[in-house]
């Protein structure tokens, strides 16, 4: 059963009526001009007090009676066969309760798992690792992408050949496009391997009760971990319960049950006691994923008016022994170009496998593309923002450019003459696009209790974005209740299914399911209230916690009084995410402006300020949304200026697996950030909420790179923009 509704969709300046077909039991999507009482109000996150007082229970904080501590032995060799593992001495150490080896493993990176132990204290577990005797047969290895690409390089895998076959995209005729270009740029850009550095490392606490397994896990996807464990232990999924009440960061690295989760559960089964296994900081850097490196050979040409005529990318990237190193996506969608060719090659090296990291591929691609566009604009003597406007396919971004340029004072700052002293200021602008439209799958439950409270339950997890808070806000909005009446219960596979929190999917996927569940609960409650108010259910409305007859507002009852009429303990209703309706737009545009200051005597770059303008559909909580913008930009500062996983070519070891040698942005590196949202009613779901976490990270490093090139009058084409590279670009070293 379906019905058609006409929605007013779009944004200020481009509104249109769109007809969508929705299921009968689905609330009509929020549209332009919707009046809200809870949604859209800056709201402190509901779990703030628990977090601010140190009481929020993260995985690493779980303590169970008789709990043991696990630790993992890792290979010091980047490529080796494990001839033998002798666990005897480790097992005999007093306090050790279980030990296991990862059988038949060929080591392909330094830091790969070899064995694991569980002991009565973390200190004894580490002692036990030192007693494990491993005989390795080391093999030739390669940890540099350019070396790995040579024909005589050691093979990372037996199948041979470290360079994968290219992934191609081709539109139009690139050669012809370059012939018509008035100017072109041909340059190579590189980006380093970045690691996630989630503050809470990967890990789990595993506890068996017969053939039932409960795992507290630091994960972005509780159901994925549940399914992996169920398969590994040949258990029905319902025998495995995974809990992630609080998560200390993930950024894309925490999906599925990794070795540390499997080991925790294996050791717990062997020892007949719960086991906590949290990785060390060094293990976290080396073995739990990273953003792959890239080497991007870019050729780009434009006509005299700045219109792009041809764009070509020859890209190599390495995700260690993992793939996913492509960075062509921004080339295909940020700007209009009739002749386009991209070729991506994944190169294997003996290093830890890549995993998704906040907008995988995008910050790398965006940095190279945007810097190349700036170099081209200079050749054509065009304003760099004007060059982007000319090739911009998005009407939303056109408005964002206008708003951002005004807030940033682009016209004035981009034309300001350069100072003559050592401190040089520069500005840059870069575009972002994202697709945080969510996906189907999530199901939510809303429960009204006899005391007047309502619980929202959904098997999602809050990675720090404020999921708990926004789902409660959406339920409160739909039910006409104050937010204080609603509690959000998440992070447990005993709740209904939801998707992993990645790909900026959580807000757009969970909020429609929650809103539908709340609407269904409201329907049940209205049917309960109707006889008492002597009206039909469809004539009733709830607002501010009071149920009223629409035509006679004085005929009313308190929501709490209504709930006392619930028979039994509670009244529950489910809802689900309905596949996207198409609506106004399936993409979300953004742009960011950066101001930097460069000391041309030391080469030190300081990011001074940022203006960010983004489309996130309906903003549920502007307060937590601003936090995400800040975070996306600050992580971009790290990628632009500091972060670089370094491997020693002689040993294959990571030389900076810490938080002092692996440089991260701190408060003194943080620019002043102003965030603006362009409100877009997109109608793709009943809430029209879009994911924001990745959209706000795509352009940050690119904008900084462009600003540095502007400041010193020369591009620095390699990230991070360290002082030596800045000075080299200036010809000073």
């Amino acid at each position, binding site marked *: 059963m379906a019905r058609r509704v006409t929605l007013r969709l779009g944004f200020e300046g481009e509104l249109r009526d769109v007809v969508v077909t929705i299921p009968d039991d689905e609330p009509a999507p929020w549209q332009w001009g919707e009046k809200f009482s809870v949604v859209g109000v800056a709201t402190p996150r509901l779990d703030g007090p628990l977090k601010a007082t*140190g009481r929020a229970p993260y995985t690493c904080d779980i303590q169970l009676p008789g709990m043991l501590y696990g630790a993992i032995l890792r290979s010091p060799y980047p490529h080796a066969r494990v001839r033998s593992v002798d666990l005897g001495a480790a097992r005999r150490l007093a306090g050790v309760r279980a030990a296991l080896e990862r059988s038949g493993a060929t080591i392909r990176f330094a830091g790969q798992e070899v064995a694991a132990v569980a002991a009565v204290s973390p200190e004894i577990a580490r002692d036990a690792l030192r007693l494990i005797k491993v005989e390795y047969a080391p093999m030739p290895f390669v940890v540099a992408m350019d070396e790995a690409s040579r024909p005589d390089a050691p093979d990372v895998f037996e199948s041979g050949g470290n360079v994968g076959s290219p992934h191609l995209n081709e539109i139009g005729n690139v050669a012809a496009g370059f012939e018509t270009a008035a100017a072109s740029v041909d340059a190579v850009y590189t980006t380093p391997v970045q690691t996630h550095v989630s*503050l809470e490392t990967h890990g789990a606490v595993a506890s068996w009760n017969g053939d039932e397994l409960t795992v507290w896990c630091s994960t972005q996807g509780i159901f994925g971990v549940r399914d992996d464990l169920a398969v590994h232990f040949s258990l029905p999924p319902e025998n495995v319960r995974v809990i992630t009440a609080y998560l200390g960061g993930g950024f894309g690295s925490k999906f599925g049950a990794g070795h540390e989760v499997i080991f925790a559960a294996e050791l717990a089964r062997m020892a007949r006691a719960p086991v906590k296994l949290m990785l060390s900081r060094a293990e976290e850097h080396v073995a739990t994923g990273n953003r792959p490196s890239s080497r991007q050979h870019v050729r780009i040409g434009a006509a005299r008016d700045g219109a792009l005529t041809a764009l070509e990318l020859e890209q190599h990237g390495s995700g260690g022994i993992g793939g996913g190193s492509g960075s062509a996506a921004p080339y295909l969608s940020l700007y209009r170009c009739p002749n386009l060719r991209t070729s991506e090659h994944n190169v294997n090296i003996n290093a830890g496998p890549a995993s998704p990291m906040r907008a995988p591929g995008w910050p790398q691609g965006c940095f190279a593309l945007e810097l190349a566009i700036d170099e081209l604009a200079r050749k054509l003597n065009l304003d760099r923002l004007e060059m982007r406007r000319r090739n911009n396919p998005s009407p939303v971004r056109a408005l964002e450019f206008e708003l951002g340029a005004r807030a940033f004072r682009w016209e004035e700052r981009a034309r300001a003459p350069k100072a003559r002293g050592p401190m040089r200021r520069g500005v840059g602008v870069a575009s972002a696009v994202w697709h945080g439209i969510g996906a189907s799958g999530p199901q939510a439950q809303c429960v009204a209790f006899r005391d007047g409270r309502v619980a929202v339950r959904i098997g999602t997890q809050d990675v720090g974005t404020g999921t708990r808070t926004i789902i409660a806000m959406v339920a409160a909005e739909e039910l006409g209740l104050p937010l204080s009446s609603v509690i959000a219960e998440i992070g447990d596979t005993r709740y209904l299914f939801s998707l992993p929190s990645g790909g900026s999917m959580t807000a757009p996927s969970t909020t429609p399911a929650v809103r539908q569940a709340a609407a269904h609960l409201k329907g049940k409650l209205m049917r309960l209230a109707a006889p008492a108010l002597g009206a039909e259910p469809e004539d009733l409305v709830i607002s501010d916690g009071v149920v009223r007859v629409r035509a006679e507002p004085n005929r009313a009852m308190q929501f709490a009084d209504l709930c006392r009429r619930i028979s039994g303990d509670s009244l529950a209703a489910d809802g689900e995410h309905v596949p996207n309706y198409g609506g106004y737009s399936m993409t979300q545009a953004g742009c960011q402006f950066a101001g930097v200051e460069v000391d041309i005597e030391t080469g030190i770059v300081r990011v001074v300020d940022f203006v960010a303008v983004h489309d996130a559909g309906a903003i549920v909580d502007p307060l937590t949304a601003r936090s995400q913008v800040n975070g996306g930009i600050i992580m971009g500062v790290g990628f632009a200026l500091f972060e670089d996983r370094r491997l020693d070519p002689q040993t294959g070891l990571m030389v900076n697996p810490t938080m002092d040698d692996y440089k991260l942005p701190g*408060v003194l590196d943080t620019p002043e950030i102003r965030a603006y949202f362009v409100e877009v009613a997109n109608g793709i779901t009943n809430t029209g909420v879009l994911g924001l976490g990745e959209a706000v990270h795509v352009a940050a490093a690119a904008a900084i790179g462009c600003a540095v090139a502007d400041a010193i009058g020369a591009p620095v084409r390699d990230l991070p923009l360290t002082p030596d590279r800045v000075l080299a670009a200036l010809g000073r070293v």
Partner: protein
Amino acid sequence: MSRRPRDRDIIEKIAVPADSAADGGGSTLSRRSFLKGAGAAAAAASLLGVSPAEADVSAPNPPLAGSAERLGPGPAAFNLRINGAARTVAAEPRVTLLGVLRDHLGLTGTKLVCDRGACGACTVHLDGAPVASCMMLAVDARGHEITTIEGLGAPDRMNALQNAFVSNDALQCGFCTPGITMALSAALGANPNPSPEEIKRAIAGNICRCGTYPHVIEAALAAAKAARGRA
């Protein structure tokens, strides 16, 4: 995988009493003798069939550091003052203050993140001053007043700074929050009227991977203003 030796690993080994080593080595600590001593101590413990954690901990509270005391390698009982209360702990002398707080006393608000004093997540107060509890042995905290995040407030009675953190959304995943709160609360105690620059310097050693710094600065300014308003 190879790990650089850390100060604490070396301290652990120096803490092994010389006469527990099989070579009966003298008091001169050469690199070679302390490494031999450490290995022998572990062997001795396992020969006795007593794990350090299971050993008798009924020994009297040892004297304070600085006097001629011997501790370890097995667990020793000692007292700490934490959040205004006396706590007795039985822990190996090599266990850090952070390890004792989290694993022995269940005070898990203080977080382990970098394990080498580089990120500020484990910050607690020692006699009112911020210290990295991952860089300090628990036995060295004897005789000092230790305050952890649990000592500042509870969810239903947060202090002004914690209230400001919540209302300004100065936290995202929240994992760095206890450490930043401890660093800031010490700074605000010393300087009730800080400038934004002074706030930044107070938390320059705290890493937040979610990038929450701008809201932390706002929260600190708001808390300072609220405190001045009450004064």
